[in-house]
């Protein structure tokens, strides 16, 4: 029972089937999401593509925004934002929907979160592949800056996991957190540079990217993939620390509130 932290961390990688199990649950989760209907994986692509179509008409054709390569620009923003939104909105009731996993065996609750985050990531990767395919048809060429992409995606995953942990544990005590977060999420959408370039915000909200961690992740991903430049190091470091902070808060909440989950739900 009284495991030291290093034993705990080691336990995730050695002598156990934890990593195997998380991957198994992620695959099943993914299958449940996309293979329960005839369209299958197409649905995973339909949503960002239809969003892009809407924003293209609204911002490029009607409002005549001057951003070059607007379609890949918006597409990248949307898939990054959607990943965060799916991981957080979708996992708020996770302790209720997945209680069969932790109630009957001594499975660590954190594994359940990781499997969902991972399962959404599989969907995200499919979208990212579409982005890369699309890049072949337009004058965007990828170069070595792509090596920073894993760091940015890791930051996004840590951030999503952190928020997912915080929200789902608050859900034990306040069921309307899902409605509240739904509203906050749409506010966040417009306060993130998803359909506008980040420069537009500098004039209106000078320190936006230091308040909204998603903003830096989206801006930096575009910088390395579309502009072939080095990311804004300061912002990248800040986002990573910011994300880790939320993860630690989330884990602390899970350790303190999580054990009451079966009683409260």
């Amino acid at each position, binding site marked *: 029972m009284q495991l030291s932290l290093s034993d705990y961390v080691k336990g995730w990688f050695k002598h156990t*089937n934890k990593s195997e199990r998380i991957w198994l649950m992620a695959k099943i989760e993914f299958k449940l999401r996309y293979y329960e209907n005839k369209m299958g994986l197409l649905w995973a692509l339909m949503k960002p593509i239809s969003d892009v179509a809407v924003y293209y008409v609204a911002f490029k054709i009607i409002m005549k925004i001057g951003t070059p390569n607007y379609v890949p620009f918006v597409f990248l923003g949307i898939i990054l934002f959607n990943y965060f939104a799916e991981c957080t909105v979708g996992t708020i009731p996770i302790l209720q929907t997945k209680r069969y*996993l932790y109630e009957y065996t*001594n499975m660590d609750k954190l594994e359940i979160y990781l499997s969902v985050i991972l399962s959404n990531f599989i969907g995200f990767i499919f979208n990212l592949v579409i982005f890369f395919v699309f890049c072949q048809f337009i004058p965007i060429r990828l170069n070595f800056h792509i090596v920073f992409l894993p760091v940015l995606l890791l930051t996004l995953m840590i951030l999503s996991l952190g928020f997912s942990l915080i929200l789902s544990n608050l859900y034990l005590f306040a069921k*309307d957190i899902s409605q509240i977060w739904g509203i906050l999420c749409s506010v966040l959408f417009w306060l993130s540079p998803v359909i506008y370039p980040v420069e537009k915000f500098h004039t209106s909200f000078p320190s936006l990217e230091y308040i909204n961690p998603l903003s830096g992740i989206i801006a930096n991903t575009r910088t390395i993939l579309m502009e072939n430049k080095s990311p804004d190091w300061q912002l990248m470091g800040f986002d990573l620390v910011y994300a880790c902070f939320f993860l630690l808060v989330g884990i602390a909440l899970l350790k303190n509130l999580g054990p009451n989950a*079966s009683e409260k739900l």
Partner: protein
Amino acid sequence: MEHTHDIAIEVFRLHKTFNIRDDNYNTIKQRFFHIFNPTPIRHLQALKDIHFSVRKGECIGIIGGNGSGKSTLVKCMANVYQPSQGYVKLTGTMMLMNLGVGMSHELTARENTYVSGSALGLKIAQIDKIFDEVIGFAELEEFVNTKIKYFSTGMVQRLAFSIAAHAGADIMFLDEVFAVGDQKFIEKAVRVIERSWIDGRTTVIVSHSMAVIEKYCQKVAYMKKGNMLFYGDPRTAIDMYVNDASSHAQPE
């Protein structure tokens, strides 16, 4: 006589109190509107100072009337509920089985077998090996790829039991599992439990069937109103329970 490393379950001065509000405010809105007139909280003492231990390989029974705290005790022992005071120490993997077995109704029998097997500590390769045996024992060969939401309660129970038996959880909590299976399956299940003792597994059975309890349990705990009145010889515990029940049934 008892060595600490032989103990599978140690329950130390366990208390469990449920804090119940008659109006269950569960949203921010409700909490906000009732900030000045909160409803009083009732404290329901479900378990009072329970103290005992179970050795590895033992099969123990828990009996008592409805609302005596049997299921709460099992849930506390399985770490599903957090004790209000005291602690429970488990050594090894565990599986809790009750009428709402730990399976997703959205998944097929195959998927559930893999997820549950993995949750009990098996590697995928090991599950591959025992898979046919698990399905065969549960007599579900024709329904391997059927979602278990289309299964009957008995079928789900059989699958859960079969996984637990084959995956080999070190500690099995069986909360009224004999209530749903048909006679044929119960006989099979009981044989597995008998075999488990040889393998050194620990079993905790909650049941209203005194026949099962008397036949298979080496020790029996008798619960009444959250207290453990007796823990030890099965015959004595059952007699206490039966006498108690009949004295209540006949008003003086």
